[in-house]
């Protein structure tokens, strides 16, 4: 198992670097902005502090991590088919279950690292500073995490049979646009008479529920397909 984990980490090195960029670049930019606009150059009406900067950077990083989720999952199985190293793996005495575990640990691990780091920074900086409300922050987290779950799940499913990781990642990203767009359209048609604020909540809840359940269902379906597949 150790050998498979090492191989998966090494194979996904470009995505690990991308995860590092997704994680660090927003904070680096936030640091530059804070250094440039810290008092006395900051506007009195818009107090800019480290906690504000890191909250914005954290949200930015989590938003980027949604797309990263699609690429990480898309590369999990299809990546080996694209460079045909799956054919080399196919004649080694490795059970599909063991191969799946190593792929899932690395893919989920990359995403978990980005999320844990971002949430850790947020907690370290004392939570949501003014002018942000904790409820808005949690809503954003729920949106990002569920969207990432759907992108990851759909990309994982496509990766279980696709030959191109880009196509699998694209399917994950497309699924979110399709779901979000469809719900927006339905909300406009169904609740045309109501104010935007009123109708936002039920559809937001529906979006989150569909993203989570769809992502999990696709992940399970992709896993089952990969485990049952005989061909590389």
């Amino acid at each position, binding site marked *: 198992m150790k*050998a498979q984990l090492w191989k998966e980490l090494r194979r996904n090195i470009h995505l690990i670097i991308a995860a590092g960029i997704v994680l660090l670049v927003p904070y680096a930019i936030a640091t530059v902005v804070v250094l440039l606009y810290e008092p006395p150059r900051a506007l009195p009406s818009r107090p800019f502090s480290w906690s504000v900067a890191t909250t914005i950077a954290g949200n930015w990083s989590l938003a980027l991590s949604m797309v990263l989720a699609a690429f990480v999952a898309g590369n999990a199985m299809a990546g080996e088919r694209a460079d045909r190293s799956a054919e080399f793996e196919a*004649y*080694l*005495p490795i059970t599909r279950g063991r191969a799946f575990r190593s792929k899932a640990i690395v893919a989920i691990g990359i995403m978990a690292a980005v999320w844990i780091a971002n949430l850790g920074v947020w907690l370290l900086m004392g939570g949501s500073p003014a002018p942000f409300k904790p409820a808005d922050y949690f809503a954003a987290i729920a949106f990002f995490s569920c969207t990432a779950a759907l992108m990851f799940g759909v990309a994982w499913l496509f990766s279980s049979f696709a030959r191109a990781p880009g196509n699998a990642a694209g399917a994950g990203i497309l699924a979110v646009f399709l779901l979000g767009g469809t719900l927006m359209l339905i909300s406009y048609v169904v609740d045309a008479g109501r104010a935007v604020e009123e109708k936002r909540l039920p559809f937001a809840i529906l979006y989150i529920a569909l993203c989570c359940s769809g992502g999990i269902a696709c992940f399970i379906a992709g896993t089952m397909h990969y485990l049952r597949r*005989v*061909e590389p």
Partner: protein
Amino acid sequence: MTDAPIQERAIELVGVTKRFGNEVAVDELTLTIPKGTAFGFLGPNGAGKTTTIKMLMGMLRRDGGTTYVLGLDPALDAVAVKARVGYVPEQQFIHRWMRTREAISYCRAVFPVWNDQLCAELLKLFELDENKKVIHMSKGMVVKLALVLALSHEPELLVLDEPMAGLDPVVREELLDGVLQSVCDREQTILFSSHTLGDVQRLADTIGIIDHGRLLVRSDVDTLLSTTKRVRAVMKDGAAPTTPPDGTIRQQLKQREWLVTVKDFTPNTIEQLRAANEVDLVDVIDIGLEDIFKDYVRGRRASA
């Protein structure tokens, strides 16, 4: 040979069929390879050799029949089969970013048995640089590395699926030496698929010729060479061949010259040919493995 007890059979295929859509790649193939033999698997491109080998390795689902490799069904125990079989395919897809030592260390971790001493000997024999990445290796070097990986876990069965295709004669020679050295030391069974009949003749003691997924012949090399002959008959003026002798594989008529390739040749073959046809002159020509192979394939296609 086919009656050998199951524990003495390295490979046993009974009525194995594989279809890709409407196309039949392997057509009720029945073949037994006893342990300790070197079997040359011959066939033209698209004959079904690689498909058969992939089914043996548990890398492809069969549509019918039964398959046993070292007493195990690859469809049910693919991992156990792979642990006991060394496989070198035609094209190598070892992770390109791996260095030689990384590929070795990876395979050492996944195979239940690994002979470090043998691995070191083979690396030395093939002059492979342990620090070189696969992506920077020549085709010959990658095949050598694949052979090191296939042999170092001391497999009971070595399956070589045309790994020497496209390699220069020097590299082919080095690879054959490596295989022969390993086989002689360990009494391994070999299934060797190749288009290079010279390589097959050097390595194999038994051969099978396959075309369109069907086994045309299975015989040990010496018997095949000694009993397959080409009979050249010159027809009498105005006469045409009527009845080819028993065991005719292929026949060609060029004006009055009638060339008949016959299996299980005996002096009686000539008498039979003379008795049934109006011939002036009959010669018997010894033919090599390449001609035998071609005549089996072309004869089958002409009769199909």
